[in-house]
């Protein structure tokens, strides 16, 4: 290894003439001081670069020399370089073989343009989701006429994956929701000595609203994101293209098994969440207002009309349909770069949770109007 001589610049001013004597190693690590000197230079009209004593120069050194040279010329100075060594001029010719072109960054568009473009793409997005749904249904009717195409095995795998394997997390979430609701209501009801109504509170609110919603949110976060990531990864590795060329339709092979599996599993998961959630409420009712389990269940039979329970269960397939379709659709949107898989997985979860809540609100309005 040769010893390093830091780059240096000696500036001498004569009448109408500035001599810049460059010395040392003009390499990227040693340039900082020289760059500062050149930045603060106030030269005479004629400038001479003497580069004969530069021992080593790399592209950063040459760029600095050229950049300063160009800036000075633009200010109206006359520049000349003397003493270029042969090995250095070869590097210079390599780097500046064509006249230097810098391309300015493209203009960022105005807010109005961006707003318009975003709106345009949002509308297009809705359209493409609808056409995705449409294509899926055409394939569904085709598959129903040719039942041998139904992928039972795949449906089974997804039932196991999205249903059975989701039980622990759903149990914990539902139990805690039961506990939270019971705690909040017990405090209020005790003020009126109406402790017993905690059973109505827990029974109705859980089975009708909270259990379906919590289950749907957990499923959207757990299985919806998995669907998007699985299909997105297959898209990136061109597996989906491979399937298409072999005549395996992605809708029959990837979309419908997931949709059916989730639609079958969701009501079951909601039923499970109902049970665990009510149990959570029972535990708190027992602890806080000495309501025994038998008493609780006896009261529950009177308080909880069948319709509340059925409405909750009925929401399941609808939520499942939305979650499964949004997440598979987002999976197909993944493009060939690594970022997009994360981007669309996030989008898929956010979209499905929003749609589930919107759908739940719609149910509430509808059922209230129907006096159910």
């Amino acid at each position, binding site marked *: 290894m040769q010893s390093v001589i830091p780059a240096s610049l000696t500036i001498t001013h004569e009448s109408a003439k500035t001599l810049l004597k460059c010395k040392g190693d003009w390499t990227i690590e040693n340039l900082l001081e020289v760059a500062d000197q050149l930045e603060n230079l106030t030269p005479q009209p004629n400038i001479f670069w003497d580069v004969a004593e530069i021992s080593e120069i790399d592209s950063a050194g*040459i760029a600095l020399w050229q*950049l300063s040279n160009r800036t000075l010329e633009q200010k109206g100075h006359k520049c000349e370089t003397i003493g270029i060594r042969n090995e250095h001029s070869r590097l210079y010719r390599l780097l500046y073989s064509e006249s230097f072109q810098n*391309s300015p960054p493209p203009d960022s568009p105005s807010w109005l343009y961006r707003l318009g473009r975003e709106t345009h793409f949002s509308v297009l997005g809705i359209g493409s989701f609808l056409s995705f749904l449409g294509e899926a249904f055409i394939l569904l009717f085709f598959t129903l006429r040719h039942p041998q195409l139904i992928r039972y095995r795949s449906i089974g795998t997804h039932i196991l994956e999205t249903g059975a394997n989701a039980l622990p997390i759903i149990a914990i979430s539902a139990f805690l929701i039961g506990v939270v609701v019971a705690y909040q209501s017990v405090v209020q009801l005790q003020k009126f000595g109406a402790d017993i109504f905690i059973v109505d509170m827990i029974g109705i609110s859980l089975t009708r609203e909270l259990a379906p919603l919590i289950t749907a949110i957990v499923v959207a976060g757990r299985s919806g994101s998995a669907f998007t990531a699985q299909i997105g990864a297959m898209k990136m590795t061109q597996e989906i293209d491979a399937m298409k060329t072999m005549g395996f339709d992605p809708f029959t092979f990837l979309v419908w098994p997931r949709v059916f599996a989730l639609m079958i599993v969701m009501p079951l998961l909601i039923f499970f969440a109902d049970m665990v959630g009510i149990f959570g409420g029972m535990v708190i009712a027992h602890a806080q207002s000495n309501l025994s389990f038998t008493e609780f269940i006896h009261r529950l039979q009177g308080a909880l009309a069948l319709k509340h329970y059925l409405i909750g269960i009925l929401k399941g397939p609808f939520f499942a349909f939305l979650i499964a379709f949004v997440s598979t659709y987002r999976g197909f949107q993944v*493009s060939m770069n*690594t970022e997009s898989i994360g981007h669309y997985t996030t989008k898929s979860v956010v979209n499905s949770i929003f749609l589930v809540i919107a759908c739940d609100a719609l149910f509430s309005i509808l059922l209230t109007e129907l006096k159910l």
Partner: protein
Amino acid sequence: MKQIIIDVRDVVTAFGEHLIHDHINCTVRENEIYALLGGSGSGKSTLMREMILLERPQSGTIHVLGHDLSKLTPLEAAGLRRSWGVLFQSGALYSSLTVGENIALLYNEYTDLSPKLIDELIQLKINLVGLPPHAKHLYPSQLSGGMVKRAALARALALDPKLLFLDEPTSGLDPLSSRQFDALIQQLRDLLGLTVIMVTHDLDTIHHIVDRFTLLGEKKAIAEGNLREVLAIDHPIVDYFFKKGPHGITC
């Protein structure tokens, strides 16, 4: 005799039970274009990954620029990593950054140069590898395969390394682009005084620009030397690579 840049001695590599390298030796000298050649699964990429500190051999020593890779302090390792550039097979450009930002990252991280000078340097590197000026503002996903390789080369050259590692530089390029890429690498070697180590299958590259190479096969280094020296060796794998089949080279 030129200075030795990389010296691989008795390297043994195994992944679990699977032996990859069985006492491999090879030597890369200054300013040469050196290739690691071999069939799929012959461990040539693994050998390169060991040279650039991404893998460790089970035993044996690798010296790069005079440093023993198994005895590096973190500081030495950092210095060594700055003195080489690596071009990965698929480019490995950061997809969230534009080409310009991919290159600027190194300058911003390792130097205190002014933004204007960094901008000039980025543009120089982009011109150097033959990309159009506006490529600076494009994202990797907007580039074609050949442009990705060139952009990745520009990034590898950002800090003017003395040592350049290329993993299958011409794979995925059409024959004309491959030859242009070869010519570019040769020109850079001549003008920047680089030492280039590449993993390649491309016999045209071997024929045209590679000075010396090692042929890996059966877990060993079967032959090392320039094309004529290797062709003189009588070994089935040498025959398989160079003499038989429609793409063989005969001299």
